[in-house]
């Protein structure tokens, strides 16, 4: 079991929903997908690299025949997979603080969901519906979501400077280099081993 690789934590959760409520959840997800500004809080949280919700209708668990007994459930199920930086407690706290109302709109249709506030009940619920990861890979274990965003900013700024450096005078380069340093100075944090947090 390995929920953690480098600076990323893999969370899996599954919650049951009455089938009629699935329609409401799907409509909300469609809205979130089409109206990108509604994802602003998720983007601003800035410690989620990738996350997804998957609704499995009660009779749509994958069925391949060949002796498999088909799953016919009474509930639809909502699967949630997240790849985030930091500890489980930090994540749930921030998730509940920043996204509280939106989380309620997503999970309030799941059975026994207590709401994201107070956070103690929310944490108990997540702990109950979470299941552990057996194998977890990341192509860049040394980096957080913010490191990735910063690295791309540094790369783009460097590419611009390289174009100019090949054809300008030393004095012009000096000015351009100074501007480059000002541009990237907030994006040069070191990547590497994750800090140990208890």
């Amino acid at each position: 079991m390995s929920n953690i690789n480098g600076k990323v934590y893999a969370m899996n959760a599954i919650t049951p929903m009455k089938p009629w409520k699935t329609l409401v959840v799907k409509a909300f997800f469609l809205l979130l997908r089409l109206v990108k500004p509604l994802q602003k809080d998720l983007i601003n949280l800035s410690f989620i690299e990738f996350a997804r919700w998957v609704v499995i209708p009660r009779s749509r668990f994958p069925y391949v025949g060949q002796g498999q007994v088909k799953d016919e459930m009474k509930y639809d199920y909502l699967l949630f997979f997240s790849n985030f930086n930091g500890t489980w407690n930090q994540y749930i706290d921030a998730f509940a603080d920043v996204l509280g109302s939106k989380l309620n709109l997503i999970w309030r249709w799941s059975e026994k969901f207590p709401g994201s506030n107070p956070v103690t009940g929310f944490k108990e619920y997540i702990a109950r519906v979470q299941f552990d990861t057996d194998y977890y890979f990341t192509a860049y274990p040394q980096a957080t979501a913010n490191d990735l965003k910063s690295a791309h900013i540094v790369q783009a700024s460097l590419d611009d400077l390289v174009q100019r450096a090949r054809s300008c005078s030393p004095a012009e380069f000096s000015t351009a280099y100074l501007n480059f340093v000002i541009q990237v100075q907030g994006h040069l944090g070191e990547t590497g081993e994750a800090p140990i947090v208890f």
Partner: protein
Amino acid sequence: MPNQNGSVFGLTILSPIIDDEKATPSHDLQIRKYLATLPTGPESPFAQAPGTHLARLVVMDDVVFVGYPAIEEHLQSKYLVFETNCDADLDEYLSGLAKAVPDHLDAIWSHCVGYPGVANSGAFIEYMKACQLETTLFFAAVNDKSVPVTLRALQTQRAVTDFIADHQGMEPARLQKEFLEFVGKLESEPVPKPGTMGPQRALKTGGRNE
């Protein structure tokens, strides 16, 4: 298309695990045992095949009973969950996996019902798609950069940090010359392998917490 966000694809696959009471240990345990020995760094199968940002494999034993008055129910099969965030086209990604790490795929999925093996690439892709679930909402913090582009950017970020620290207050002509040499060297370096931690850096001491 809900499975895709920008150029990143969110693939979710649930493959039913063989339920054979005569198997010892059971197939789900055999998968878990194999996964426990699989390297997670640059030797990982997902590092050897192209296009994986992050991926996980999970044995899902059952659905969760959240307590009364909810109804308690159970799955007929255990499922192997494969969740991956990968570059571009799904067929290309799956055939890339099949070409690069066929032995690992067979060792893991041979415990799943109906798995045809990777020897027949078409049947393998068809099987994976039959077990695929459509993602309802897929979020990606960075959705327009491939794995190699990201690894290159992280390498650049580290190198630029060092260059700036080492070239403070330098005379412009020399700075320009050394900058162009630095860029040439950086561009000639290979893209780091996926799954590597990057170079070990000396610990900085003397911070205010010490």
